[in-house]
């Protein structure tokens, strides 16, 4: 299971998940049959597991059409279902004024929670932010409606490679929202050596000089993926038992060497000094300066990501849910968030970079959206050419990764 940078879990989530797990109903009743072949129309109903070298055109269904062109916006309120703190309310408020509508934002902590709620039909939302690794499953379950791109002319502002992504050829169901990389965050004023000063940058995680202050992301794909890359394995979706076993052994060795800890609070642990080295998401590093103590400048923070872009990279998307009561408004907001003004305004709060051609690395630094010393946290379009994405696994593959992670989390 691929986790998301915004998954910051808590006690309430655990209690809620136990209830959801016990009470999840058959909102996806006939889907087991969808696992095994084609439906009578000949459309693929199996999981195709999209990969950059195996692009996927998602199925369209007659009973799940896109909205017609040229419709008037609805009266609202527009219901947005998103991660916590992953969209800027003032940005939406300003947009909503033009149409005289109101909006409501409901949040979720994990994609599993979100999909369980959508599947149960307990609540109705219009705009949703799926991760690419769950997209295919949501389409097969007919939980997303196809987009009418006539309402989203600002899609042309997006990087060309993400206008027609491999996981959704033709952008039939989604458009991109943000992009991020996973690298190594560090306190430049505390570590003896920066990651790029090691023969293998990932060796910083094993340096006993940082014992007790070394952290990995609490993520069952991100942390093992770093160990795969450390050993030159670039297939971050591998389902080979020996690769996953190697990653697990490296993680267990890290416990012995530096008593490594795990968290998803990379954006606070580095600024507050609890961590000197923390596997980190790029968006977290953009946000991290705001959490520094008074009087401490952003120059104490550093972020390493391979200069050739050969590291973990990801993107999030926006889509309209089937059964949305305000699909036109949802389309229009998507279009606004892909406009230069809307994207910049939203980015200033969210910290995760929208993939717009107008937002070059130089511009984001010159206009001080990102401090100069954290310029490596800027995601470039070319990073997707050389980067490695953590994508959906088969059920058996998921089990292998999850069991390896559980063994690491059990300690030594």
């Amino acid at each position: 299971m691929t986790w998301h940078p915004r998954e910051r879990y808590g006690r309430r989530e655990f209690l809620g998940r136990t209830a959801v797990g016990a009470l999840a109903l058959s909102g996806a009743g006939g889907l087991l049959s969808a696992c095994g072949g084609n439906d009578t129309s000949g459309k693929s109903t199996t999981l195709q597991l999209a990969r950059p070298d195996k692009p996927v055109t998602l199925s369209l269904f007659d009973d799940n059409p896109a909205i017609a062109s040229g419709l008037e916006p609805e009266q609202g309120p527009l219901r947005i279902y998103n991660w916590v703190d992953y969209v800027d309310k003032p940005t939406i408020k300003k947009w909503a004024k033009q149409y005289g509508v109101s909006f409501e934002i409901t949040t979720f902590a994990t994609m599993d929670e979100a999909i369980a709620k959508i599947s149960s039909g307990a609540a109705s939302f219009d705009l949703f932010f799926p991760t690419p690794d769950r997209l295919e499953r949501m389409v097969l379950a007919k939980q997303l409606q196809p987009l009418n791109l006539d309402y989203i002319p600002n899609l042309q502002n997006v990087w060309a490679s993400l206008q027609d992504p491999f996981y959704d050829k033709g952008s039939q169901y989604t458009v991109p929202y943000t992009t991020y990389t996973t690298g190594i965050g560090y306190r430049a004023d505390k570590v003896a050596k920066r990651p790029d000063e090691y023969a293998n940058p990932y060796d910083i995680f094993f340096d006993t000089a940082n014992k007790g202050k070394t952290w990995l992301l609490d993520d069952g794909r991100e942390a093992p993926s770093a160990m795969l890359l450390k050993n030159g394995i670039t297939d971050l979706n591998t389902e080979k038992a020996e690769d996953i076993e190697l990653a697990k052994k490296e993680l267990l060795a890290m416990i012995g060497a530096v008593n490594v800890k795990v968290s998803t609070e990379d954006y606070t642990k580095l600024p507050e000094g609890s961590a000197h080295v923390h596997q980190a998401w790029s968006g977290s590093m953009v946000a991290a300066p705001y959490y520094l103590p008074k009087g401490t400048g952003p120059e104490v923070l550093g972020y390493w990501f391979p200069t050739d872009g050969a590291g973990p990279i990801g993107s999030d998307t926006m889509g309209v849910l089937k059964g949305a009561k305000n699909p036109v408004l949802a389309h229009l907001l998507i279009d606004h968030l892909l406009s230069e003004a809307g994207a910049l305004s939203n980015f200033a709060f969210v910290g995760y970079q929208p993939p717009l051609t107008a937002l070059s690395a130089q511009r984001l630094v010159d206009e001080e959206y990102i401090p100069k010393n954290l310029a490596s946290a800027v995601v470039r379009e070319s990073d997707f050419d050389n980067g490695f994405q953590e994508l959906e696994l088969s059920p058996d593959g998921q089990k292998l990764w999850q069991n390896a992670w559980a063994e690491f989390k059990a300690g030594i």
Partner: protein
Amino acid sequence: MLCVAFGYVDPILGIPRPVWNPLQWDGGAFSFVLDGLFSRGGSFQRVFLRTIAYVFVAIALSLAIAYPVAYYVARFGGRWKGLLLAGLVAPFFISYLMRMLAWINLLQDEGWVNTALRRVGLVDQPVNWLDGRASSVVIGLVYGYVPFMILPLYAFLDRIDAALIEAARDLGASPFQAFRMVTLPLSIPAILSGVVIIALPMFGDYYTPDLLSGSPNTSMIGNQINLYIRGGQQVPVGAALVIVLMAFLTLLMSWYLVATARAQRALEVPE
């Protein structure tokens, strides 16, 4: 929970699908859990044993703190009893999460604990309390649950008839002997109640190790349950872990019920 543990996960949406008909139950998740518990070096085994150790130490420390506090308030509180109890309980109107976050601030390198230790000269350099040590997790468990032991102890100690202690003193017992032979035996049911009240949530705790440590070497069984329940194809494994934990706690509860019944019988005055 049984139906989830013996069920499966929707391969499309990753949502657990409970199986209600026992004839269709799949025991794969339970086999996996039992193998991890009873096989040599199994990961569930070391987490379970670690959890038992932490909880027992935390209970002992909680009792060592709660009993004198409850005893003092009950026996010597006088007209200040209400105020003392309010003072003890008031911080716990704040959520558990906030109190644990406060502990992080206290235990940080530049936190109040290190500041105090350096001021009195006990240490020269800040102690890294949050470097993933077991003691931080145990302290967190004690702090989080000790008031739930103080209250039942206080309630029971406050009801002990003072005449019994007076009688012991009149018969020549020293204060310590009166405590050992009268007060302590009478308070055994309260001690057992307090132990059960705090042991049950401690066994399921996963947040304290995450917040105060983050190290895999201090993870408890609640962390493993959380990992499997959160998502993926093995939610039934998480459910099976919950069932195993419940079975273990049921055994402890059974011991508690038997022990309490025996203690009560021992206190009954023969006719």
